[in-house]
Each structure stands twice: as structure tokens, then as C-alpha cells.
């Protein structure tokens, strides 16, 4: 090959390479332009939605269906019914947390998306990325939906509240009001000679002590513990133990008429002291801190490492589904696969010395759906979506179809024609992977993608089995659920600046105290540090917010 050919080959290669580079690097079109989100004032009063006009809407629900794709059954059904052309975005939880801020910054936010975290929601408001949605507008177009929110969780309006304006639509999580319940290995209790399932903290201590030191599984090895927790989940770590003193260590509570942080209260200190004693007596699995999997506690229970479990599993240890022998993924099925003779008994939340018992619940508020500030130019999209949600929570057929798909294709009744036996997913959707790919699931109480509405009492009879209703009545009494005053602690305005850092600090200090790396006196230093490093500001803000909350509640109540 001559020199000239060499040269031209080189140029061709360079050109191809350049093309690849340019192709791979879409130049940011928005960031150097004036403004991504032009703000024009919307006159809501004169706005009407022409139903015959097809609307194109990009939509991102909650990030629990990462393997789903466009044009699923539910999407097409909704498109037909509401004359919308959806472009859904499906992300997994990690991508959602990390990619979403970048999507917003790059100007490619969807028209409608779900926000789980009030801190990022408040930031999005600060960056002017989402639209103000007047409460009255929502009430006008989705009156029943608003009524349900106000009856379940009026506090959830706070998640999207800033400077006296509302910026989103709360979702309803009816399952969120039912507290988790604890379960015990009945055969272990029998093996160590305990006849009665423990009901108080003292009885619990005695049983867990035996679980560690008296070889409850009779394998001749000292390889069992009393309990563990998922320490990464601040909301559930040892929640029933703290609940026995009536505190939530990572939430705002009312104390002597004022809002205070649960983590600085004397009850928290005494519970930490107790937990340290339990740890020193080897009742607590020493690996509890490195647990990162959401099913860590369930895994320890199923594998026979601990004989007690409560809240730190994805649906709570004692959920109705976990006792379904026919479902291969249920806790009881997994336990019996590994240990056929194992027996489980459902206990009660431990009673503390002051006669208190309880465990943290999120309450009926779920996430928040928000609308991109770009919709200033297409506000009728908002009306169409509101109407869709309103129908989803009033029309039972649409409700179930937008959550679980089509009857006889995706799901069916267990006993032929009615719900008395509950619902089941049909093959191949009984495989969890196939179910998420089709965006169908049977946890009707929450976890929405298309439908933000939990199962209302009116739907219970139609879709819940009698057994499940009876189970929840017997074991999951809403009165035992302990809630944050605002349902989510990060609603407080200055939380964005301080809360995450202080929460991590609290996790560290509490773990050190429980393990005995630091004496219990370290708690008092922590309280001082907490107030100094932003806690005081947050507490002041929380008290102000609480006053606003009563105003909002007033409005919500009188408005109805």
C-alpha cells in the first residue's frame, strides 16, 4: 500500500471515530439556553380539558418495576380509556435515586413523576422544576380522591407544601396504617421449655436468652441468636423495642405539647441501655450492623440463626402473605424448605415497663406525584391525569385493572367467582419477575405505578379474602402503630441541610452504645452535639411546621 493510501485510511478512521464520539455524546441542548422551564401563569378557572384531544404524556411512577417495558396491558388500557399516549419511564430504585436528579438537571424530566423523598421534593420546588397545583383544583377534579387522602393521612399534604402553596398530589397507602407484628419459632420455645409466647420485655428477654444459650435447635452447637435487625433501615431498627417505651428514635413526636426529636428523649436512652444489656448477653446477632439486604431479618429467621423476627423485612414478618403455604416465596414456605419441622407462632408486640407497646408505621401517606414545570404550557394534561386517578379510586373495575391487570389473564379469584378466598396471580405472572415486567401486583394497599390509590374500605370486600381481613383484625391493630407527627421526618424545611448528616451520626452513636464501644453517657454528648449541629434549627422549624399543620388540617376539614 502506498503512502497516499495509508494517509487516506488514517483520515477515514479518524472520521469514523469522530462520528462515534459525536454519536455517543449528545450535546446538552438545554443547559446553555435561557431557561428550561419557562414559567407562564396558568389560569386554572378558565381551563377545560377537551377529552377528544389525544394527549402525549411522559410518566414515571414509583421505581419498583425496573424490568417493565412500554405498551404493557395496563398502559394500553389506560391509553384507550383516557385518550392519552403514555411514554412511561421504568427505573430501579438505585437508578431512580441517582439518575433522577440528573434527568431533572438536564431538562429531560417526565411530565408526571413520583417523588418518595420530601427532601428532594423540596429541592425540586426550590429549583422551580415542578408546578404548583392548587389544592382546590385537585379537589374540584378528583373530589373523592381528596376525601380519601384527608380521611387517611391529611399530613401527607405537607410533603409537597412550600411557602403556603401545594406542589403535588399525595398517594394513598392504606396498608401503611397496619403495624407489623412479631413472630416466634414455636418449636424453639418448646425446646427451651417456654410454654407461653412472650408478651412483655422481661419475658422476651428470658426467651431470647434461652435461644442464645440453651441450644434451641438441638444441633449441639452454640450458633443461634435471639434477634437481629436491619440496621440500615432507620425506620425499623429495633422499632418494637423502642416502641415498648413509646418512642420513635428517628422521628418527630409530641412531648409536653411541643415537637421534639425522638432520638434525644430519655426513653430512647433507657432503651439503648436495655439494648446494650441484650447485646452484652449475646442476644443480638453481632452482625446486625452490616445487614444491608432488605430481607436480612427474614433471612436470619428462615436460616435458623435467630428465633424471633418483627418489622425489618420487606412486608413485616407477620404479614398474611407470609403464612401462605402454597406460595413458594412466602416466609413459611421458605422456612419449611430448610427445616420441615419448624413451627411459627404469631406473638404480640412486647409490653414495656410503663405499659406501652407499639411499632413504627408510615401511616396512610405514601409518595407524592408531581408535575413538571413544563406543563405550564399544557396544563390540560394535569386535568386528564387527575380525572384518571379519581376514577381509579372510585371505580372498582378500573382500580383492580390498573393494579393487577386483567382478570383471567393476569389474576383471578381463588374461589371461582368471588373474593372470599382472595386473589391470586395466574401463571406466568405468579413468577415475581414476570409480574414486575408486566407492572402487575397484588399488594393492593400501595406500591403504585399507574394507580396512586390504596385499597379503600369499599374495595376490601371485593378484593380481600375474609381470612386476610380477619388476620389483620386479629394481629395488626392500627392503634399500636406509632407515627411521626408529620408521617415523614424529612418534611421539616431545614431537614435538607441537616437531617441526613445527623441521622447517620445518630446511627453511629447508637450502634456504638448498643455494642458497648461507648458507655451510655455518650448519649448525653450526642444530644448536645445533635442540637449544636443543626438539631435546634430543625426543632424550631418542626414546631413552626406543626402550627401550620393545624392550619392545613383546619382548611382540609372545613373545606370538606
Amino acid at each position, binding site marked *: 500500500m502506498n503512502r497516499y493510501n495509508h494517509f487516506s485510511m488514517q483520515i477515514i478512521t479518524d472520521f469514523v471515530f469522530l462520528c462515534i464520539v459525536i454519536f455517543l455524546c449528545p450535546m446538552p441542548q438545554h443547559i446553555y439556553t*435561557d431557561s428550561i422551564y419557562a414559567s407562564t401563569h396558568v389560569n386554572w378557572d378558565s381551563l377545560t380539558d377537551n377529552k377528544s384531544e389525544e394527549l402525549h404524556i411522559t410518566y414515571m411512577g414509583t421505581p419498583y418495576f425496573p424490568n417493565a417495558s412500554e405498551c404493557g396491558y395496563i398502559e394500553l388500557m389506560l391509553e384507550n380509556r383516557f385518550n392519552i399516549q403514555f411514554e412511561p419511564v421504568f427505573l430501579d430504585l438505585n437508578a431512580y435515586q441517582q439518575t433522577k436528579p440528573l434527568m431533572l438537571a438536564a431538562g429531560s424530566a417526565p411530565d408526571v413523576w413520583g417523588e418518595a423523598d420530601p427532601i428532594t421534593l423540596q429541592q425540586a420546588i426550590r*429549583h422551580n*422544576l415542578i408546578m404548583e397545583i392548587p389544592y382546590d383544583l385537585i379537589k374540584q377534579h378528583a373530589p373523592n380522591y381528596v376525601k380519601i387522602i384527608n380521611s387517611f393521612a391529611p399530613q401527607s399534604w405537607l410533603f409537597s407544601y412550600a411557602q403556603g402553596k401545594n406542589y403535588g398530589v399525595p398517594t394513598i397507602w392504606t396498608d401503611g396504617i397496619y403495624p407489623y407484628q412479631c413472630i416466634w419459632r414455636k418449636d424453639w420455645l418448646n425446646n427451651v421449655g417456654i410454654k407461653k409466647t412472650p408478651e412483655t420485655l422481661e419475658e422476651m428477654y428470658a426467651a431470647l436468652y434461652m435461644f442464645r444459650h440453651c441450644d434451641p435447635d438441638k444441633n449441639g452447637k452454640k450458633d443461634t441468636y435471639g434477634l437481629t435487625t436491619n440496621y440500615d433501615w432507620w425506620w425499623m431498627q429495633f422499632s418494637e423495642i423502642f416502641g415498648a417505651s413509646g418512642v420513635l428514635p428517628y422521628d418527630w413526636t409530641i412531648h409536653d405539647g411541643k415537637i421534639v426529636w425522638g432520638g434525644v428523649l430519655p426513653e430512647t436512652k433507657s432503651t439503648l441501655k436495655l439494648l446494650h444489656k441484650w447485646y452484652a448477653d449475646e442476644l443480638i446477632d*453481632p452482625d446486625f450492623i452490616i445487614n444491608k439486604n432488605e430481607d436480612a431479618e427474614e433471612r436470619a429467621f428462615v436460616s435458623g440463626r435467630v428465633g424471633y423476627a418483627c418489622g425489618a423485612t420487606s412486608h413485616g414478618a407477620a404479614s398474611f402473605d407470609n403464612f401462605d403455604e402454597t406460595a413458594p416465596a412466602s416466609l413459611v414456605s421458605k422456612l419449611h424448605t430448610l427445616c420441615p419441622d419448624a413451627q411459627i407462632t404469631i406473638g404480640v408486640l412486647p409490653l414495656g415497663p410503663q405499659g406501652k407497646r407499639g411499632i413504627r408505621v408510615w401511616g396512610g401517606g405514601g409518595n407524592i406525584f408531581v408535575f413538571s414545570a413544563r406543563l405550564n404550557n399544557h396544563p390540560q394534561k394535569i386535568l386528564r391525569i387527575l380525572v384518571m386517578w379519581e376514577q381509579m379510586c372510585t371505580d372498582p373495575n378500573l382500580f383492580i385493572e390498573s393494579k393487577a391487570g386483567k382478570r383471567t389473564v393476569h389474576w383471578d379469584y381463588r374461589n371461582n367467582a368471588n373474593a372470599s378466598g382472595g386473589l391470586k396471580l395466574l401463571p406466568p405472572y405468579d413468577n415475581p419477575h414476570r409480574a414486575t415486567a408486566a407492572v402487575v401486583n397484588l399488594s393492593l394497599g400501595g406500591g403504585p405505578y399507574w394507580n396512586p390509590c390504596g385499597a379503600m374500605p369499599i374495595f376490601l370486600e371485593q378484593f380481600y379474602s375474609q381470612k386476610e381481613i380477619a388476620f389483620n383484625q386479629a394481629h395488626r391493630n392500627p392503634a399500636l402503630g406509632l407515627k411521626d407527627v408529620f408521617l415523614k421526618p424529612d418534611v421539616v424545611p431545614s431537614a435538607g441541610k441537616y437531617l441526613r448528616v445527623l441521622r447517620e451520626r445518630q446511627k453511629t452513636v447508637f450502634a456504638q452504645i448498643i455494642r458497648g464501644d461507648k458507655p451510655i453517657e455518650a448519649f448525653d454528648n450526642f444530644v448536645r452535639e445533635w442540637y449544636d449541629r443543626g438539631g435546634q434549627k430543625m426543632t424550631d422549624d418542626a414546631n413552626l411546621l406543626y402550627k401550620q399543620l393545624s392550619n392545613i388540617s383546619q382548611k382540609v376539614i372545613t373545606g370538606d
Partner: protein
Amino acid sequence: MQLVWMLVPVLLFFIIFSYIPMCGLIIAFKDYRMDLGIIHSPWAGLANLSELLQAFEFRKALTNTIIISMLRLSFGFVAPVLLALLLNEIRVTWYKRTIQTIVYLPYFFSWVLLGGIILTVFSSNGPMNLVYMLLLDICNFCLGQINSLFGTNLHHFAFSPIQFMTNRHWFLFVLILTGIWQEVGYSAIIYLAALAGIPVELYESANVDGAGRWHQTIHITLPVLMPTIVTLFLLRLGQILNAGFDQIYNLYNPIVYDSADIIDTYVLRILQNMDFSLATAAGMFKSIIGMILIVTVNMIVNKYTKGEKGLW
């Protein structure tokens, strides 16, 4: 002329992916608002940098980053050189290749996966603690024998599991060890390539002069490797404030936050709060420190090698 053309793709790559994005650094000096865009966001001067440097969390993260990086540099930098030297001494080809493949393999696994494996291996009832228990059993058995033979009364060791992941010193040990384990095979390749370039005649003549393996390594192999080692060392210094985000994020827990929270984990928290200006300021701070280090050390190297072994 041809050589210049061959440079074009590389230049383009750096211009597009490294130099153009640098314009984004002005975010660090602005109070960046997404709705206004980069250009129209109001200027904030040095407010972000000063907020960063005043934040207790950032200063702690900076200290931790430096400590972890120094440890990595001290142990992690020597390991691939040693591995390359050892591999170079193996004469049986299939054996050498097998070993090389095995040590190279962990490099291809992501830290998400390795994190799960390592947490299990180092947990209180994991394989590492079983090995430890076995060692103690052997010690106790020996002590028992000594006691019965000599009538002494030496105490047995009691077993309590080592808290690898929740003791800050052990945690650093695990961090450095698993970091080396993951990277050593990959890093050794460059040294192996350099070693392959050493003329065989040098070894042959050294052999004739009566130099053994050890002397050959000291007087031929290492001096030839030196420029590669210095170059890689300089490049590594520029990365000193990258303490290994993936690894730490997947391994750490609240008990070791105090000693394992690094700049990158701190920046992630800021980014999740959508505070882009502060996050950019932190990133810029890292880059500036890295640049200062490279320039200084390069000057020092040039001074002591009379301009022969520096990068430029």
C-alpha cells in the same frame, strides 16, 4: 504527518470528554438553579467553597480520604510490582498463565457483587472467622500438649469472633486487602509488559558474570522497571483523593462511618439533596489537590533524576 493525524482521535476524546465539561466548573461559583440554567444562575463567589471547607463532615471526609489513600498507596502500589517480579520468575508457561488469569479475574467483578461476598466472608460466622477459630484450636492443642509434657499451666485462648467489618482498624485492613486483591492482577500487566521488553542478553551476560537470580532482579530488572514505576506512581498520586468509592460504599456501615466516610460518599449525599453547586465545589477541590500533587512530585522527581524520569 501521519503521526499527527493519529493523534486527532485522542485529542478529540480529551477535548470533548475532559476539557469541554470543565466549563461546568463555574457551577461551583454559582448558586445553581436548574430552572435558570448555568449561565443565568446568580453568582455566589467563593461561598460554596467556604461552606464546604467549614463543614465538619467535609473535613472529616477529607482526613479519611487521605488516610485511606495513603494506606492504599503504601501497600497497593508495591503489590503489583512484586507480583510481576514473581510471575516473571516462573518458567512453566501454563502455570504462569493459570496464575495470571486467577489473579486477574476479580478485576472483572463489580463491587456490588464483591461487597456481598466480602461481607459474608468476613462476617462473625464467616470463613475468615472459621479459619481464625481453627488456628486458635491448633494453638490450644499445642498448649495442651506443652502443659501435659512439662506440667506447666499455660492458659488456653478463648475464641471470640473478630469483628472484621465493625472494628475500624480491621475494617481498614479489609478495605486495603480486598482492594489489592481486586486490582493487583490488572495493575501487574503493565509491569509484565515492561519486563517482557528487557533484552535476554542482559541476563545472559549477568549469568556469565556469576550473578544469581536475586542479583539479576536487583541490578537488571528493577532499574529497567524504574521509569514505569515512577510514571505509574505519579499518575497514582493524581488520584490520591479518589479513595475507592464503589468499594467503600458497598462495604461500610454506621459503626465505621467515622473512619470510612470519604469525599465521594459525602458528595453523593450532597448530590442526592440536589445541591449541585456544593457537589461541584467538592469535585473541583479534589481535582485541584490532585493537580498540585502531580506537579510538585513531578518537579521533585525531575530534580533528583536530572529531568530524566519525570512525566514532562
